[in-house]
């Protein structure tokens, strides 16, 4: 295992994927993907719809169980039986397309819940943490509000704060701006860009090409359940190697 491999100058592997397959019944969604994401690296996963991007991302914290292949997080093979997946997930934050905030809890309670229940933080400690995260995403005045009163962009920023509250080393983003009205996309991307500078490892499934180009260290282009291209953004957007990527980019840009 190349645990000290270097990806774009970033030492150490945070996520290693080996020959990942996923089938839903007869449907083959992932057909053997191998790659690695370095610690602190920001990777954008793009590709046409149905190419398996989301499934690929969801295999990284086992929200989908791979049919075959291995997912190795910080040197630990999490696809092996007997692994405490709850423990692994504490270190991998996830942000969803549709936010999935807990509707019966206030913004503050949403953020405090996992640190209290899972990390057993005291009430004051969890509250302090939650407020500092709300300040970070610019929503401190919404602490006592219920999610139904927030705009889409605000919901997503709260969802990011909620995921960060577990102080994960890895963050997964599953189309975080796809369900947002256009005028709210920027506020979420700004938070994510800020986050990218903080040195946290990020894997982002996105359709925001401009954002991917600007923020990502690397682009993974998926097509038909396979990794069709794996290159730095300037290379991918400048001179894509595969025809599929060329076609895709022509449609997108």
């Amino acid at each position, binding site marked *: 295992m190349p645990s000290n491999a270097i990806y774009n100058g970033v030492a150490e592997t945070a996520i290693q994927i080996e020959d990942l397959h996923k089938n839903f019944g007869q449907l083959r969604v992932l057909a053997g993907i191998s790659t690695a994401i370095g610690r602190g690296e920001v990777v954008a996963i793009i590709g046409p719809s149905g190419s398996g991007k989301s499934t690929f991302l969801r295999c990284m914290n086992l929200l989908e169980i791979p049919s075959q292949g291995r997912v190795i997080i910080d040197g630990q093979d999490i696809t092996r039986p007997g692994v405490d997946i709850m423990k692994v997930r504490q270190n991998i934050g996830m942000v969803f397309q549709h936010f999935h905030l807990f509707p019966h809890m206030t913004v503050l309670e949403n953020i405090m819940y996992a640190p209290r229940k899972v990390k057993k933080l005291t009430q004051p400690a969890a509250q302090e943490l939650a407020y500092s995260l709300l300040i970070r995403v610019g929503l401190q005045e919404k602490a006592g509000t219920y999610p139904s009163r927030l705009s889409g962009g605000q919901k997503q920023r709260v*969802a990011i704060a909620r995921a960060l509250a577990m102080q994960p080393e890895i963050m*997964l983003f599953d189309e975080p701006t796809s369900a947002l009205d256009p005028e709210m996309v920027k506020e979420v991307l700004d938070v994510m860009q800020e986050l990218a500078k903080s040195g946290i490892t990020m894997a982002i499934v996105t359709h925001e090409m401009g954002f991917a180009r600007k923020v990502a260290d690397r682009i993974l282009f998926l097509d038909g359940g396979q990794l069709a291209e794996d290159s730095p953004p300037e290379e991918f957007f400048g001179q894509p190697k595969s025809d599929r990527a060329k076609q895709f980019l022509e449609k997108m840009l």
Partner: protein
Amino acid sequence: MNLDFSRILPNIPFIIQGIVDTLLFTALSTFFGFIWGTVLSLLKISGLPPLGWFANIYTSFFRGTPLLVQLSLIYYATPQLTGYNIQPLEAGVLTFSLNSGAYISETIRGGILAVDRGQTEAAKSLGVAYGPMMRDIVLPQAVKNILPALANESINLLKDSTLVSVIGVTDVLRRSQIVAAEKFVYFEPIIVAAVIYYVIVMGLTTGAYALERHLQRSS
């Protein structure tokens, strides 16, 4: 019309006192029935075959046989099989909790399945274990969705509670029958009982409606 309440007037407080037994009975059965129904519903969605089979067979038995038969079985069989001299109220609460649990388990199961799958995914992604996830995230949302059905169930329990008069619990109906037998007036005491039940049911309905509105507001 030949109604004469004057003869039973002094006995009306005696009938009204039956409310204590009736309400106690309904409250206990609703409470234990809800807990037991929740457990059964979790067994049903557990995906573990033996547990799911047990819960389904259990539900089919309690929904497929009359409540009065179950009540008689438990009241008469318990002393015979276990030697424990079960009191009528205990037998009533036990039977009604077991029975109500079977019905409620289907309602709760539906309520749980109706909670957006994203909620459990969000909880899992935060590393929250199954127990707290169900207790803090899924069940509160499920119960909120099925609150009208749960209120209906407790109203049904209240009305079905008249069955315990058969095994001698001195609830409202039983007391009205006692008065009837004493005073040789059969119609009027039953009317008093009917009015009492109606008032309680209206109270419950209003309370459930207020609770529902309160929960809607909070999110």
